[in-house]
């Protein structure tokens, strides 16, 4: 029993050309997918936000400005690479790489289509959560390694936020896992005759919020809050390394959208269209919702961020988990449509009660 053969178990046996071809193929697919989707995401975000703000957004480079991300990438790659004098050079160098790797790893367990994924680990979801927590390391390496106080503040915020938001996020996922009985992403998609967004509305909401916070999307983009910390942890980055962080930011958003699609929106399943297209469409829709909230909401403060995690999302996630567990335990064989109604009611009540009882804590401290 070794690592490789173990991993080999997880892939479909009938892949033509055997197992290495499978790896090669999907590695390429993932990298291409991530890069293309990131460019698409940047385009969608800039155009979408532009339109929401009464502007056009980029529309000069290429048809409809479609080549704008390419132009930006080209520009940023050609820029001078500046490393501050006081920076911890090695850490400064490694940070973008370490931040980027886990994002690619996440896609290893995301099914693009039925069975079409790098490896269907039976701990898939746990793998995602575990791996995505590594990219935090990259962020605080960047913050520390830059030797800049803004960066350090951003990194500390990130550390605090990630540690807090991982908990409601995992709890929200467990709500789904209770229903599927498996951690494998493929099995989760298979189990979704009804998209889990309906069965687990509260879980979806919690996961969405926690995911936005974890990947620093507005309104939780405290780590790079440009009006406060200029650019947070990547203040001191330029050129290629900045491009990496930029890539990470959007790749993480895409990854989270893909995860949400897989877990809550029944992944690649859908009528009429080919499954991979469904997957991409759903991913883009989720991403668009992120853009939409980003264009609308002001940023929360760090203590409010933490309070939201601990005082609102955490109890809500526990309630969600509790309700789900009871449902699965007591009525294992009942149609999930009944849970849809019940859980939506639970979600509404939990949100209503939670919002009423939620107090963000102290703003001011005595100094």
């Amino acid at each position, binding site marked *: 029993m070794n690592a490789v053969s173990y991993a080999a178990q997880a892939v479909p046996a009938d892949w033509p050309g055997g197992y290495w071809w499978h790896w090669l193929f999907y590695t390429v697919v993932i990298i291409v997918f991530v890069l293309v989707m990131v460019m698409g995401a940047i385009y969608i975000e800039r155009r979408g936000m532009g339109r929401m703000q009464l502007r056009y957004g980029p529309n000069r480079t290429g048809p409809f400005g479609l080549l704008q991300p390419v132009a930006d990438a080209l520009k940023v790659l050609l820029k001078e690479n500046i490393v501050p004098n006081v920076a911890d050079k090695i850490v400064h160098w490694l940070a973008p790489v370490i931040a980027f790797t886990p994002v690619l790893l996440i896609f290893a367990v995301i099914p693009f289509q039925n069975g079409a994924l790098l490896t269907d680990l039976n701990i898939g979801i746990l793998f995602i959560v575990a791996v995505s927590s590594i990219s935090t390391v990259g962020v605080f390496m960047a913050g520390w390694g830059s030797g800049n106080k803004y960066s350090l503040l951003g990194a500390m915020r990130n550390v605090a936020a990630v540690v807090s938001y991982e908990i409601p996020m995992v709890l929200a996922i467990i709500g789904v896992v209770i229903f599927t009985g498996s951690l494998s992403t493929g099995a989760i998609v298979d189990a979704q005759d009804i998209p889990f967004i309906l069965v687990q509305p509260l879980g979806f909401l919690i996961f969405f919020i926690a995911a936005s916070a974890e990947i620093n999307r507005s309104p939780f983009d405290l780590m790079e809050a440009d009006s406060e910390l200029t650019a947070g942890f990547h203040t001191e980055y330029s050129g290629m390394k900045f491009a990496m962080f930029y890539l990470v930011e959007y790749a993480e958003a895409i990854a989270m959208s893909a995860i949400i699609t897989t877990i809550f929106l029944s992944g690649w399943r859908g009528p009429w269209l080919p499954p991979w297209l469904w997957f991409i469409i759903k991913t883009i829709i989720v991403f668009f919702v992120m853009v939409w909230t980003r264009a609308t909401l002001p940023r929360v403060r760090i203590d409010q961020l933490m309070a939201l995690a601990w005082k609102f999302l955490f109890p809500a996630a526990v309630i969600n988990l509790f309700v789900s567990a009871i449902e699965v335990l007591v009525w294992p064989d009942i149609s999930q449509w009944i849970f849809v109604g019940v859980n939506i009611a639970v979600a509404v*009540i939990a949100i*209503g*009660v939670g919002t*009423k*009882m939620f107090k963000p804590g102290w703003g001011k401290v005595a100094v």
Partner: protein
Amino acid sequence: MIPYQLVWAIMLLPLGAFIVNGLILRLFVNRKSPVYGYVTIGAIGLAAVFSVWALISVATNSEHLIAVPDVNWISIGTFNFHIGIMMDQLSALMVVVVSVVSLMVQIYSLGYMHHDEAGYYRYYTFMSLFTFSMLGLVLADNLLFTFVFWEMVGLCSYLLIGFWFHKPSAANAAKKAFIVTRLGDFGFLAGILILYFNTHTFDIAQLHSLAVAGVLGGSALTWACIGLFGGAIGKSAQFPLHVWLPDAMEGPTPVSALIHSATMVCAGVFLVARTMPMFVFSPEAIRIVAIIGGFTAIFAATMGLVANDIKRVLAYSTISQIGYMMLGLGAAGWAIAAEINSGALMGSGEEIIIIAKAAVAVGMFHLFTHAFFKSLLFMAAGSVNHATGTFDMRQMGGLRKTMPWTYVTFLIGSLSLAGIWPLAGFWSKDEILATAFTSQPVLFWLAMITVFLTAFYMFRAIFMTFHGEYKGGDPAADKKYAHTHESPWVMVAPLVFLALLAIGVGWWNVTGGFSSFMGHEAEAGHGFMAVFNIFTHTVNGVPLPLISLLIALFGIFAAYVIYIKKWITAKSIGKFFGPVYDVVRDKYYFDELYENVIVKIGLMKGLFTGFKLFDEKGVDGAVNGTAAVVVRGGKAIRQAQTGQLQLYGIFIGIGLVIITVCVLIWGM
């Protein structure tokens, strides 16, 4: 046949109301909003419907039982603990009593608490919690759960007596009630523990069969039963722990109507009834039950004679009537115990349990009827208070004209309580008298005197309240209550409904229906005419029903003579019985006894001083001595400490190496 889920629902619906009211609704709704009331009433109403259904199901069921699957709660090692529901005749009866009375009280409270400053929120939240606890108490199938709910009803009682906690008297009464009942609860807990250590089970059904099988017996059973009865004394305000109940009238009147007349205070009776198959194997215990019951009945009735506060009159009456029920249980049980002792009662364990369970029919029937008319009386008193602003009967009078509905219902309740044919109280009381008569004549005579006293003080209350001239209501309220008027329909409607019940429920047992429901063999059919045949009915050759009815009528007449016609004035009687009157008026000095003698002298001066001495000399001496030795030793050893943790770590490492080497060399 009711589905078992609905049996759970009976208990859980009020809990749901509690959660909705207490945790959710408060966030959205003003605390004075009647929505809280609607939620509670809805939940309890549904529970009442299910209860009645359950009762019918139990009655029509050949086994008189609804099987409800257990829920496994904790399983630690061999210790398995289940949450279960026991739905037999007793539970079904109690469930109906609790839910129906509670429903009526909640409806009534909508009107009664309307002007209260505290609002509906807290009130209905507590009331829902109480109803849940009470239902849980009667439904629990093991003693541990009974105890949990027992304490919960105690808590609710505490909260509700102290509902107007800003009044010092209410706060004190709440504390008093809580502490006094706690005394009894120690007994209860001790009883449960004795039972558990002897049988390793809390399950009531198992305990019954163990008791019958003789596994559980002897002094352990006796002490356990006495312990349980101790709990019952506390909760049911029996002598000598009766002192809290009159003070508990500081709470809102609907609370008194629900908790302190119909349900919680009867929990003691219920507990004794529930464990009756154990009691019958312990003649000492059952005798104590009967004696205390009989004594309390007359003892409390005398105090009721002189109270001026209408609610206190009713409170003493409650104590007295519960004494009656205890007497009924005790007398019936005494008889069976005697039979078992003498070996007259033969049969398998199952049959003995059934007989023992059936023995509670007499007491329980009185509980059943009493619940309706006593809560009716309390609510009518509340209605009076609503109109006059006071509970002092000397400030009332003549309300008959302005409050006809209240008057009529109160009258029905009083007649029922006094045991006037053909109202409910007559039938239940008659049963108790008959049972006592056949088994314990002494107790029977106590009960007979009580009949007279009961009729007398109830009609004293009626005459003082409803007849004569109106004396102006609450003197402190500055003419606010100068003109009385009938209470709103939300208050009157429950009164009327309960009045109908107070008239009618007694007929259930006229033909022995209730007894057979409780497990007695069905008597030969008398038909409906039995209602009238009762006067010719004799027990051991004595026309008992007729005598008791006459005595009650004589009591009414006496009251009429004194308070309406004033042929004999109350004053002159008071003068005549001077010292006795004083003693009775001061409640036999029980409060003073507890306060001054037991607490101040017994506890504070005696016990606590002893503790203190022991603590100072014994414990401290030992501790200080030990410490001194250690200090001296430590002073010598501490030179080896550098305070550097890592040095210690090195030592540990060295030790580890040495141990490992030793193991390697010698261990293999």
